[in-house]
């Protein structure tokens, strides 16, 4: 089935998932979320792909939340199911066996910010505007952001971002640790491609094991994490054992 809201390209072992709604802002509608889930299942299962880039390049926005015109009339029941759907997408991205780079090409707001945080790390263009405007709209975020943002930038910056609801630029995002690298408009895409291709050249089994272990580090005590690491490393070192 073709995609309506996104496009997938594969080059040099990198799978590019382009959010491509055709509108100025890539809204995370129910259709877009479902297509993203399908896209990540597809790239995860494609052996010719070693790393994934998620981006709205060359558009103006990476992603923004759902359509406010629709959400304004959500019942609690509908909001519950919407959060559940969004969270299942982010779980799909986190559990994708390949590294996923968030290439933040521009406006990244609300659900779009949570989407960026489900990627393994984030590279931003210097025109980035990133915000969590929930408190301005009378809601909290529902796509895992209340847990992920404090873990990425620390509780205090997370509270400032949530409470102010204001957009932050690329340099602030870099200082807080919300994005990992910032490049100028000219440099941005070439650097995303080089980084992704560099990662995709490494053996996939090692990349997958590293991703699983680092994700597990968040939720396990050190000793259990070390046991997991030993098992994974032993397995990798003896590919025919």
């Amino acid at each position, binding site marked *: 089935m073709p995609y309506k809201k996104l496009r997938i390209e594969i080059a040099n072992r990198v799978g590019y998932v382009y959010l491509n709604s055709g509108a100025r802002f890539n809204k995370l509608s129910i259709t877009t979320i479902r297509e993203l889930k399908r896209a990540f299942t597809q790239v995860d299962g494609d052996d010719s792909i070693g790393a994934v880039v998620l981006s709205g390049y060359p558009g103006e926005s990476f992603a923004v939340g759902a359509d*406010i*015109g629709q*959400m*304004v009339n*959500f*019942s*609690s*029941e*509908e*909001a*519950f199911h919407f*959060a*559940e759907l969004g*969270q299942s997408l982010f779980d799909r991205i986190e559990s994708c066996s390949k590294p996923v780079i968030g290439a933040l090409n521009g406006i990244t707001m609300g659900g779009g910010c949570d989407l960026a945080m489900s990627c393994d790390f984030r590279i931003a263009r210097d025109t980035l505007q990133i915000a969590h405007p*929930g*408190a*301005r*709209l*009378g*809601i*909290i*975020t*529902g796509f*895992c*952001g*209340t*847990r992920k*943002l*404090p*873990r990425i930038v*620390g*509780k*205090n*910056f*997370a*509270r*400032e971002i*949530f*409470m*102010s*609801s*204001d957009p932050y630029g690329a340099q602030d995002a870099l200082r*807080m*640790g919300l994005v990992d690298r910032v490049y100028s408009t000219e440099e941005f895409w070439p650097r995303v491609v080089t980084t992704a291709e560099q990662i995709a050249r490494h053996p996939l089994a090692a990349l997958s094991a590293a991703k699983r272990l680092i994700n597990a580090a*968040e*939720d396990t005590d050190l000793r259990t994490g070390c046991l997991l690491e030993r098992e994974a490393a032993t397995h990798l070192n003896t590919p025919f054992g």
Partner: protein
Amino acid sequence: MPDKLCTIQSKIDGIAIVTVSGSPAVATVELLLSLQRRFATLAGDDHIRGVLLTGTPQGFCCCQRVQNCTLNESARLSSLGQQVMFALEKLGKPCLTVIEQRCTDLGLELALASDFIIAGQGASFGFPAIADGMIPFCGGSQRLARLVGKAKTKEIMFTGDTIDGEEAYRIGLVNRLYPSGEALPRAEELLAHICTRSPSAIRIGGEVVNAGYDIDLATACLLERDAFALCFSRFDQREGMQAFLDKRQPQFSGE
């Protein structure tokens, strides 16, 4: 008399400025009890939408060093201190700390229990009481380690040295740093701005952030999903989204 150590000035825009000077002559327990009463007042007053903790040029949250306690007294003091800091975290209203001077020991513990810290360049932070054989007892070691990492926390606690505003800003202990004397007005501006946002979203969001931080991702996400759904049965959600669509300023009720 002890409540002079900690005074509340309420402003018409719903912001309460809490000046916690303390005094080098006051016993720690007196200052903690004073803070406890103040936080109960702030939590119960619906006219207060946001809180700013600040000190005086003489200091921020100063008190006598704890000395010569029995084991029981010391344990009771730590329980009280931790309750007071949890009470601040559970205020349900945004609470920023402004530091223009020394912020050490109990002062740093208090600042760490607020939502975040804004500092002037002349600020300094640390736990110098280690020199007298004391460690933080109101949750400060746990909050600092979660905020700036274990290594920085150990460096600060083991040496007992204070770090200056620039260093505190660099390691993420303070969110914003301003030239000396400008931190208070800038913090007031930011808090007034935050107070135009939905009080219920801020309260629920703060609670979910705190509750989710120390548990596993899957459970934290369940909690968030339910809290997110709850927002959609409240006035603030309809008002916030309708105002966005109408391109006007929302009038939140906190309901």
